[in-house]
């Protein structure tokens, strides 16, 4: 499957939207591209109960944010920020070119920049 087939066939975004009662609200911006993604994360005893995102970014960042939030819902926030960039890229469904690694990593890097980033 080519990268574009994957993007073209990606279904509706499961985690798109806002969470007004979020405990973590953080904006992440891509390097050199003007893209912005906002993460909204609701915690309960340190566990991620719900997570949403919105913003204005490329499709790869957008799909990555959707996949990333699905992955971390149910995890302890301290474990979620510990996810390494390499392991996330390895798990990501497609191989991305060097020029677009930043797009895929934008949601993970954004979470690492939150107050919980100190647990990395």
């Amino acid at each position, binding site marked *: 499957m080519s990268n574009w087939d994957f993007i073209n066939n990606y279904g509706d975004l499961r985690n798109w939207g806002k969470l007004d009662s979020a405990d973590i609200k953080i904006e992440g911006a891509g390097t050199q591209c003007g893209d912005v993604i906002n993460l909204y994360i609701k915690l309960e005893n340190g566990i991620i109960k719900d997570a949403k995102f919105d913003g204005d970014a490329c499709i790869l960042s*957008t799909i990555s944010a959707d996949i990333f939030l699905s992955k971390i819902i149910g995890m302890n926030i301290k474990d979620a920020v510990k996810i390494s960039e390499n392991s996330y890229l390895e798990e990501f469904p497609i191989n991305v070119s060097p020029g677009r690694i930043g797009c895929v990593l934008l949601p993970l890097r954004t979470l690492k920049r939150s107050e919980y980033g100190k647990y990395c």
Partner: protein
Amino acid sequence: MDINSIRKDFPILNRNFIYLDSAATSQKPRQVIDAIRNYYENYNANVHRSIYSLASEATEIYESSRKNIADFIGARDNEIIFTRNTTEALNLLSYSLQSKLEKGDEVLLSRMEHHSNLLPWLRLESHGIKVKFIELDSEGNMDEEDFKSKLTKNVKLVSITHVSNVLGTINNIEFFGKMAKENESLFVVDGAQSIPHLPFKINDYIDFLAFSGHKMLGPMGIGVLYGKYSLLEGLPPFMQGGEMVKSVSLERVIYEDPPVKFEAGTPNVEGAVGLSAAVDYLKKIGMDNIRKHEYELGKRALELAESNKLIEYYGPRDSRKRSGLISFNLKSKKYDRIVKDLQSKSIIAGKLIHSHDVAEFLGDKSVFARSGYHCAEPLFKYLGINGSVRFSWYLYNTIQEIEKAFESLGEINV
């Protein structure tokens, strides 16, 4: 112009792709590659200094390359300074001219400049020089009235691009140059996107001109700063070191005459030789023929862009005012629906598909196009868009390639 025989001269085109990124760098014909090999296999020695015959031959080849490139733009050979590229040429000028500018002087640029013709001038702001910008009209032409109103007596230098690498606009440099001269301002032309594509001869109103070899079939790492000899004589060197001096003592340095004064260190001789071979190639095909061919491709590209309701393109609507490129964005089908379903006012990927996504898709189809800001980020902020896709073509591209590229865009289904 026999496009099939031209394509046979470019070995890389044997690979199966459609190359539409010649505004970033052009492909190289066998004649250029052979000229560089021939130089290294038969003539390599350091230039300008040694006495033995091989060094004289190398110097002769280097200097005759300079002469050939000078002829190509209608200049004299002692007005051609070799640099690495357009960026270095404009930096050289900015650093050398700095001593001639005073606090309160102004530099006038336009809103469509590449970072190369922007940052070297913006750095002068820390020396008290004010930088002003010519506004653009809705089609991406420089606003001539705005230019006139900003061309005050304090403007000591006007530096504008001949052809925009984003909008494709061919600017009327004769108008801007003559007005600048009347105002006694220096007039600098960024020719990176015009010298490779348009018939061109130096005119009296042009004081300095910068261009790159690699965008005009030559190798990377060689560029040119043309400067009027009388002006070059009065400027201090940009860099100091080997080659550029007549005599050095610890008390006194006597610099070489231009252009060598501005070429410190061992120069890029293979680059000069390669660029000279590129100029021979362009002359053989004829710049008028190249312009005509690119214009035909541009007309077709514009027709295809206008017939696709999902394409939003930038720059003049009239092909005659455009050089060989088109920048555009593609409107999405699917994301509009998602946004609507969510009844959200915020938009993902906007109504436009991100240019990197479009370029990624095209890359899958072996159509190689540039995306992003094209090193002109302030222009995109000015236009209020987040980058664009750019198709740019050259003498070796075909109408069929342009059609295939637009056809591929139609297959994007997000």
